[in-house]
């Protein structure tokens, strides 16, 4: 017992001796809150976290893919199957969300919140009338910008389909456009958008300065929804949207003019040995582009009917200009969503819907580091930070 008491006294006295031998730690100014750079560095990405364990508390996370020790830099709220948008030119993150005053019950309010990229604090709000905002697993095509980023377009689904046009600068709703049978928003021209429709066509709509339809044009037969459906989120190369189909065909639409123009490309991701039964694209955000205009497609060797959301074990890199497949990148932990950073030497970010995020060298295909699940619970859509 005496021995134990002596040992305890030694333990207690040792730190005291150390303190007297050096200066105490300085006092720290509080309260203190970190601020981010208003324009995010090229290694940063934005990760939409659906947060399936509590979907009403989803998030949009800002992360530095080059920071292995502390990749998570901040987050904003993205509640209840939110849609999120990042506008570097506005230096804003936008979320379109749904709220109930008693968390799960009460009168529904839909709203766009405008978040400052530096402070991550809300700086504006626009109420969306009618409680009709489309809620679904995160898609980029449900919330988009047009009119030089001054306006936002929000998809509605009740299941009646329509698009709400919002003036972000004036903080007001301009109009609602009925869009029966058509879904998702692909900004087209200076002030307008295109959508895919249930009969396999595409519609392009231009808007007047009040947000009303100025003109519309249907482009027939752009998609065989039964046999060759397209994944709904494209990779953009300039103003051209590149889609990949469930079977690996590549389709391109020039969205620079007032009417979407299907490009005459006869490209596919190609085939490979070892598929059982065959390699097919699979995942959530399955196609991405880099700053040099190469396409990256997430591939699964067990491709069959119903496998299209399973995620992939490889990324195939395609040069759409030559049609050549440049490389196959093996993903050590698989992925459901991919994106390329805009660094001089781009990195391939590979996220799995159940959390883990890996960072690979896009040129060599080598793993740079695994960031684990320290950024998001359920990463869905990834957006380059610059």
């Amino acid at each position, binding site marked *: 017992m005496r021995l134990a008491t002596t040992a305890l006294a030694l333990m207690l006295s040792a730190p005291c001796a150390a303190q007297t031998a050096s200066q105490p730690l300085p006092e720290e100014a509080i309260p203190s809150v970190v601020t981010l750079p208003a324009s995010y560095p090229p290694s940063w990405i934005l990760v939409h976290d659906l947060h399936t364990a509590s*979907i*009403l508390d989803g998030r949009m996370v800002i992360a530095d893919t080059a920071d292995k020790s502390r990749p998570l830099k901040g987050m904003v709220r993205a509640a209840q199957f939110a849609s999120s948008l990042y506008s570097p030119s506005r230096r804003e993150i936008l979320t379109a969300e749904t709220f109930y005053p008693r968390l799960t*019950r009460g009168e529904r309010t839909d709203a766009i919140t405008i978040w400052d990229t530096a402070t991550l604090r809300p700086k504006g709000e626009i109420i969306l009338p009618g409680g009709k905002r489309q*809620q679904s*697993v995160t898609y980029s095509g449900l919330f988009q910008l047009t009119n030089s980023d001054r306006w936002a377009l929000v998809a509605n689904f009740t299941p009646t389909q329509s698009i709400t046009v919002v003036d972000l600068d004036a903080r007001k709703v301009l109009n609602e456009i009925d869009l029966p*049978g058509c*879904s998702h928003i692909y900004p087209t021209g200076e002030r307008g958008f295109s959508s895919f*429709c249930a009969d396999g066509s595409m519609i392009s709509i231009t808007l007047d300065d009040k947000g009303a339809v100025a003109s519309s044009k249907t482009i027939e037969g752009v998609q065989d929804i039964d046999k060759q459906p397209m994944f709904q989120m494209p990779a953009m190369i300039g103003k051209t949207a590149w889609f990949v189909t469930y079977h690996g065909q590549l389709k391109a639409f020039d969205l620079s003019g007032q009417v979407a123009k299907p490009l005459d490309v006869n490209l596919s991701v190609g085939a490979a040995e070892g598929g059982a039964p065959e390699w097919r694209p699979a995942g959530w955000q399955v196609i991405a582009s880099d700053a040099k205009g190469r396409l990256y497609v997430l591939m699964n060797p067990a491709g069959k009917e119903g496998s299209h*959301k399973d995620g992939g074990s490889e990324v195939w890199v395609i040069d759409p200009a030559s049609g050549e497949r440049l490389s196959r990148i093996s*993903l050590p932990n698989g992925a459901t969503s991919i994106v390329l950073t805009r660094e001089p030497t781009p990195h391939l970010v590979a996220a799995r819907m159940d959390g883990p995020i890996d960072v690979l060298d896009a040129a060599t295909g080598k793993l740079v580091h695994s960031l684990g699940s320290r950024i998001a619970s359920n990463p869905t859509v990834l957006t380059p930070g610059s």
Partner: protein
Amino acid sequence: MTMSGLDKLTEGFSRHLARTTSRRSSLAWLGAALAGAVAVPALPVSRAAAAEPKRAARVAEDPGDPTSCDYWRYCAIDGFLCSCCGGSVSTCPPGTEMSPITWIGTCTNPSDGRAYVISYNDCCGTSSCGQCSCHRSEGDRPQVRPQSNNDYNWCLGTESSIYHCSAAAIIGVAIEP
């Protein structure tokens, strides 16, 4: 990625099942859509509600574990299984409200070989159940075809759009196209 990792991702994608959405189910969805989000008088919900759950008596004809993602009716489901959340394969857990508007799958019952039209009714008004997450997409098509897409939150026409879990009720035998 290792194959075991892939297996984990793919969960229950082992069977190749019939998937064609029948004309009947498409019309059912269209009818619900036309009726609007609030006044939904007929189609999937009333059938699901009227159906007496008699699985216990006919388990040999309706084989499998409804708390497992492999269960045949879940061929196009995406969400938390109500069977793990206090409900059952065709009933919502207490405190929730069943969505009257649904998406549709066509799944083959391994016992009788028939293709059944399955109505995946979301249960709404309580936060995410969080149990038995199950994702299968046989016959799933892009959102442009809503009745065949499992990515929507189908808590539509309910008092609250908060998603809790998904049930999988038989609403008929599929008519071959």
